[in-house]
């Protein structure tokens, strides 16, 4: 297993995340896709740290902590979305239409 394999896996995960972000309509699914993209980036950090050295793993720890906060806010938004529209489909929240 080389650095290339790891980076290929990370980019595959990232693309899956982007695909999910753009296609899913449910807010929870979109949040999951975001998590996937985040973790793809973490994987890339960790891989570089493992094969090339450097402080990449520290960034992973920090990124995880931030992700937790992000998920907390994201889920709170989902709750509010549900209260307002009785649904978690993002299409409903289109009041910013110009």
């Amino acid at each position, binding site marked *: 297993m080389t650095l290339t394999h790891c980076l290929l896996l990370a980019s595959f995960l990232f693309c899956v995340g982007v695909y999910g*972000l*753009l296609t899913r*309509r449910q807010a929870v699914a979109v949040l999951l896709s975001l998590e996937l993209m985040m973790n793809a980036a973490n994987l890339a950090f960790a891989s570089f740290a493992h094969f090339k050295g450097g402080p990449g793993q520290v960034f992973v720890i920090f990124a995880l902590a931030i992700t937790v906060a992000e998920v907390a806010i994201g889920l709170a938004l989902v709750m509010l979305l549900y209260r307002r529209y009785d649904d978690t489909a*993002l299409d409903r*929240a*289109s009041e910013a*239409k*110009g």
Partner: protein
Amino acid sequence: MSTLQSWAALAVLAPLAAALLCVVLPPLRKAGKPAAALCLLSSLVSAGSALYLLTQHETGSVSRTTIPWIVFGGKAIASIGVHVDATSVVMLVVVTMVALCVQIFSTAYMHDEKPSSYGRYFTLHALFLFSMNTLVVAPNLMQLFAGWELVGLTSYLLIGFWFQKPSAAKASVKAFWMTKLADMGFVFALLVLFVATRGFEWSARLSTETATLVTALLFLAVVGKSAQFPLHVWLPDAMEGPTPVSALLHAATMVAAGVFLIVRADPLFAQAPATRDVMLWIGSGTALFAACLALVQTDIKKVLAYSTCSQLGYMVAALGAGSAFAGFFHLGTHAFFKALLFLGAGSVIHAVHSNELADMGGLRKKMPWTALTFGLGALSLAGVPGLAGFFSKDHVLSELEGRAGWIPWALLMLTSFLTAFYMGRVLIKAFGGAPSAKAHHAHESGGAMLLPLFVLAVPAVGAGFFGGKLAEWSGAEYHLHLGLTPIVASCLALGGIFAALAVFGRGKTAPFTSVLEGLDRASAVDRTWAGLYRHVLLGVSAVMGFIDRYVVDGLMNAIGYSTIESGASVRRLQTGRIHDYAMAVVVGALLIVLWGVLR
């Protein structure tokens, strides 16, 4: 500040205090009588201090106190203060005495007004007296200009005092814009003077060209203020104001401010012989022209208004001949007898409720005291030997002897005959003959109106004997002599009166009436100005209005409109759908990556 200057400052500030009190305390002004009492008190203080200054004056004493007014770069370029010398002291006495008499007269004349407009009337009078005194004691041309504009404002407000009358409102606007047009000359004169000398002193030394320019511009302002040809047309219309206002502003003091300005700025005018020549011709021409028009007026106030134009012409001509003293002397005597005549006319108008000479007649029996004092004023104006008008007019004519080929002298001599003739006509029409229908019920005016007439009759008769003293103070030559001018002038004055008796005594109309009325119409001065106003001024205003509406406002509107339109056209980009925004983020990120790779 010495004692004398304090008294002069008191004469200026007392009316200001009264006017301010009446302005900031509306209940006081609207009560009418208390406001009038306050303003009369302030005028009394003003007149008292002016008289005290006169008694204290010594030959050749000149003093001034100034405080910086317009400070620029740490240096005062104009100051404000009082200047006490023979000219300002004598003028101060003339102005405050006439103002006091006119205000006392007004208490009775304006009796029928509502309390609020009664108070407004006296407030404006106090404001006028302050403005005029500011002008008179001015230590430099800048303060003189401030007073000049203030008297113009009060003149506008007082002509339009009965603003509900359309003719009065029109007359006030006409007076305002005619004089403002001329006042542009004053503004430019101040500018040129400042550029040349860095100051506003009338004693400045200038090159001949600059002096000619400055004095010509100043003279333009004088032509407007003192109603000289061709800007005289506002003065007859200004008679729409209350009669005491005509007596004070438009006969005795405000219109004489123009002449006062030339007397003040005499050192400047002395450096500009060309301007003086123009003044000589305009003054003598106006004197004759206005006297001709006075001959055919049917309204007693209009006769006196044209007569004022004519007499101001004498003063301007005297100043044009280089004799500031002669002009100033005539200014002083004229102020007294013309105020007397106007107040007498006011007394008559009050009794018969009409301005028309045809509605009067036979009033000598009904109103003997008015007839006596008016008659004295008329004889003084006509220049009957021994009365005040004779001395000053005689001195003006003596100064003109032999100048410019005797023509201005001859014009003024002819005017002198006409003056006696038209005053004789007024006397006979108003006081002689049989009473008209309206005059039957006339009765003598009350004490408050007669007292000022008696007071003014004293200087109107005797002010001429003050000439020697005034000449001594002004440092001018003045002595009575039995030469060509006094003899011819006396004969013409008496001749004019007898001619009037011969012509009008039998109830005839003036000779050449149709010719003179034709002159009035054909002169077309009034119509020229009206045409200029209608076509040029309103035309320029229309162009300005178009530019303002479609260029200045148009630019603003275009900016606003284009903002709204561009906003509307890009609003479609905002779909409100979260996936579209996410897509934009992704595409943007990809583009950045692509840019990084391709670079």
